[in-house]
């Protein structure tokens, strides 16, 4: 059978592949990826150097470090633990039809030790290739299904679930390792089966959880839209009652050539039906086509309505094709919306204009709001950390916004002051193959 020492070395290579093919960019920064890679390289070399399989336990260090890095970046325990479980399950799957099968054939004496050793190298290469292929497929599925976004948008932290997943993972890995160290091939295969089994079980349950949350969010949105529509219908019913009367009055005035009175009546009709005819912002934001952002905008409309802020929204591009991580996008969008709201709220002419438009490569969001001009504040000051024009404000919003945007290569922003308006233009690149 494959020497246990080389087993540790191979595992290290497997996890290095996992870092660069799955975790890098989406979960880890370049520095963190390099750090983890170094840890695995050291572990691999040490295990060969000292010829000791107990160095496999160093993998625990790698797991902890990766968990901390991912949690720090995404602020989500569930994603961090699921990532570890998935990496492990995929690695195990890649071993099954390659090296593990070869081991079984040796144990069952189907192949001779000489033949085993002759072809072992090719099996090792085949395992690496299969793993790379599985990682490619996983990466594609993650991108297509936008699972990460759905997970990150779950309202609860799910730390208990996350810890349970980690416990199951470490327990089964422990079993598996003891199988390896003690040469219990049956225990090894059972534990492999357990890891893959519980990964599938957890994945399915989490899929159901995200689906439930998505549907709940969507039904909440629909309820809000329904309330808006109902209000309009009530208004229309009321309007119908007086409409005939108004038309009759108008006809009488026109017949009598009482034009001034007719014109006054017409203005009355227009004013009366104004709220019925003015654009329905709730319907406009349904064009955004991303429920979580629709929810954000719905709250914003309500906030502006309560504060009597004149809000105009123009949408000519849906946001489902944004290449920016949805959680980051929502953070950026909510920061600039809050910023516009707070500035407009204290300005004499309360007005905000939001435009979401696009071209084949980019989505551009323009937010234009009124504000109180203060010549002593330079435009660049707004992006300084801890800068705020208001008391008891941390002043971190736009600073965080600029940091998030800077972490995306092609995303950009521009700020201007023009004609008594503060303007922020924020562009994000589009996905080449959007999921929706």
């Amino acid at each position, binding site marked *: 059978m494959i020497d246990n020492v080389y087993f540790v070395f191979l595992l290290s290579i497997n996890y290095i592949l996992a870092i660069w093919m799955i975790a890098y960019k989406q979960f880890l920064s370049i520095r963190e990826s390099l750090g983890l890679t170094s840890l695995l390289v050291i572990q691999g070399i040490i295990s060969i150097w000292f010829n000791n399989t107990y160095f496999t336990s160093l993998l625990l260090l790698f797991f902890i470090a990766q968990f901390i890095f991912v949690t720090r970046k995404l602020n989500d325990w569930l994603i961090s633990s699921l990532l570890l479980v998935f990496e492990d399950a995929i690695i195990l799957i890649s071993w099954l039809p390659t090296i593990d099968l070869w081991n079984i054939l040796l144990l069952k004496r189907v192949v001779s030790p000489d033949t085993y050793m002759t072809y072992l190298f090719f099996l090792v290469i085949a395992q690496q290739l299969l793993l790379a292929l599985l990682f490619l497929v996983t990466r594609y599925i993650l991108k297509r299904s936008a699972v990460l976004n759905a997970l990150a948008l779950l309202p609860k932290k799910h730390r208990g679930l996350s810890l349970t997943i980690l416990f199951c993972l470490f327990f089964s890995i422990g079993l598996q390792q003891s199988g390896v160290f003690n040469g219990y091939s049956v225990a090894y295969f059972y534990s492999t089966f357990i890891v893959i089994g519980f990964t599938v079980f957890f994945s399915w349950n989490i899929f159901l959880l995200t689906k439930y949350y998505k549907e709940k969010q969507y039904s909440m949105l629909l309820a809000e839209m329904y309330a808006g529509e109902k209000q309009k219908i009530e208004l229309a019913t009321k309007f119908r009652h007086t409409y005939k009367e108004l038309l009759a009055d108008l006809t009488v005035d026109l017949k009598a050539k009482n034009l001034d009175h007719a014109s006054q009546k017409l203005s009355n009709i*227009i004013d009366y039906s*104004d709220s019925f*005819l*003015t*654009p*329905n912002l709730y*319907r*406009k934001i*349904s*064009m955004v*086509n991303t429920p979580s952002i629709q929810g954000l905008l719905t709250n914003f409309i309500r906030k502006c309505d309560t504060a009597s802020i004149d809000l105009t929204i*123009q*949408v*000519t*591009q*849906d946001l489902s094709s944004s290449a920016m991580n949805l959680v980051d996008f929502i953070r950026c969008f909510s920061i600039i919306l809050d910023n516009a709201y707070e500035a407009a709220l204290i300005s004499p002419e309360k007005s905000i204009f939001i*435009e979401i*438009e*696009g*071209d*084949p*490569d*980019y989505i*551009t969001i323009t937010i234009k709001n009124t504000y109180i001009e203060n*010549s002593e504040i*330079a*435009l*660049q000051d707004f*992006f*300084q950390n801890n800068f705020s024009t208001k008391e008891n404000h941390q002043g971190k919003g736009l600073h965080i916004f600029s940091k998030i945007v*800077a972490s995306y290569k*092609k*995303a*950009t*922003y*521009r*700020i*201007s*002051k*023009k*004609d008594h308006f503060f303007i922020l*233009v924020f*562009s994000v*690149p589009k996905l080449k193959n959007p999921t929706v």
Partner: protein
Amino acid sequence: MIIYVIEDDNQQRKQIIHYLNECKTIFFDLELSRLSNHLTFMEDIPKLTINDNDVFFLDIDLKTTYTGIDLALEIRKYNTKCSIIFLTSLEDKAISVLNNNIFPLGYLIKNFKDSSETKEIITEMIKKSQLTSKNFWRFKQDKVTFSSGSETLFFNARDICYIQSLKGFNGRVLVKTLNEETIIEAKIGKIKKQLQQDYMMTSLQSYIINLENIISIDRKNEQILFDGQQLLSIGAKSIDKVKKALQVYSDDR
């Protein structure tokens, strides 16, 4: 710039044309197309020569075998850059415009109650569509173009007071004009190469100064006052350099 208005309601079409005629004071090259029959416009499109600065106002609901969206898709086959503005009575109709890769400039919700608002929206939309057009800048020969990320921004160099490279903001500059200030993603060295105008002083390391727009220089307080009450605080040494450059520029003229 040729403007096409395709609207089945003659009254509303007249109203839009009325607003557009009023816009002629701003857009001197605005020309209204005589093609207006929504029933035959689909067959007319292949015969048209569509320029990038042409603007199409298309009613979404044309009450014929095709919609304004079908017309837009046909127009996009011949020109991907011209501006398309959809007209609609209710905003829900605009939903169907999305996901068609038409990339309209916007949509105009027909609201002829408030004529000034509608006129303002139309003017703004045409202005936006014409920024890239040469004719738009005919009276302002000093058009300069800066790229900021995905955006292309246009400035009239004569309106610029100064451009300042921002410390702590990697690759960002502040552009102060007579009536606007903007922070864009750009390198000052690159902008210096672009601005070859003799009234632009590009010899300072972190600043580009428009000598034409200087009103006064206050060495004591180390400030330069520009047109539009724009104030720049800069070191005494730089003030001396600006003074010298201003002297040379005045002598040359």
